[in-house]
């Protein structure tokens, strides 16, 4: 078993990469995937802490996060499809009606 910190570092790296992806990519689906990646990075932290503290609550939390992620995937992808049906595009540059 490795040091807790190593897991946390990996998690931080993954989270940062996910952030960069969300901020820089144009494709909505890729952005969505990056969000999933960030969620997973957090999950890793949870599990690592759970193991470290000898408390299962963190893992239960991960379990719920996964449920939420599944729901999110379903709804999010449905939104993407709906958006695509309207605009024939999944580029975030084309999503700009939420303004003044």
């Amino acid at each position: 078993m490795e040091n807790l910190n190593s897991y946390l570092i990996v998690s931080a790296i993954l989270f940062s990469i996910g952030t960069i992806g969300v901020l820089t990519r144009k494709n909505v689906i890729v952005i969505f995937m990056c969000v999933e990646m960030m969620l997973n990075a957090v999950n890793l932290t949870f599990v690592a802490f759970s193991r470290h503290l000898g408390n299962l609550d963190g893992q239960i939390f991960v379990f719920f996060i996964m449920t939420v992620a599944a729901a999110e995937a379903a709804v999010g992808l449905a939104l993407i499809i709906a958006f695509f049906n309207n605009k024939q595009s999944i580029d975030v540059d084309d999503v700009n009606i939420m303004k003044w």
Partner: protein
Amino acid sequence: METLFFLIISLVAIVSAILVVTLKNPINSALSLIMTFFCLATYYVMLDAPFMAAVQVMVYAGAIMVLMVFTIMLLNIRVDASKKHSHKLILGSIIGFFTFLNAFFVIYRSRAALPTGPYSGEMIKSVGHTELVGREIFTNFLLPFEVTSILLLVAIIGAVILAKKKI
């Protein structure tokens, strides 16, 4: 041995994560993401949480990613090489970097608390991880667990309504 294994897995995870962000074709990104998820499952096993690993593979790598790939296929988007697939690279990278820096400093400057819970590695191994998680879920977390089912139901209905053109 274990350290080496950890390092290799980490390397794979980070590289595939970078690939998710950088690859042009969303299909390729998705495949890389699956790779990352597998790496995470491996970590879970290393952390004595085999049930979580199983769920990770089934839900993420299996269900969610399949859904994504399906969507990508369904929308059938041509990758236009001439078009930029990303923007604001520098600003995004800086923010990402600082995110990492924040996290790193927290980890660097703080020390984790000592173990308090009853679930040590030996205990998990002797009783079984799945059993322990199951006990927790169906005793202490019963209500949230049941509520999740409603959440999923709502999500299903919502997805159907959103995606269908005419209801």
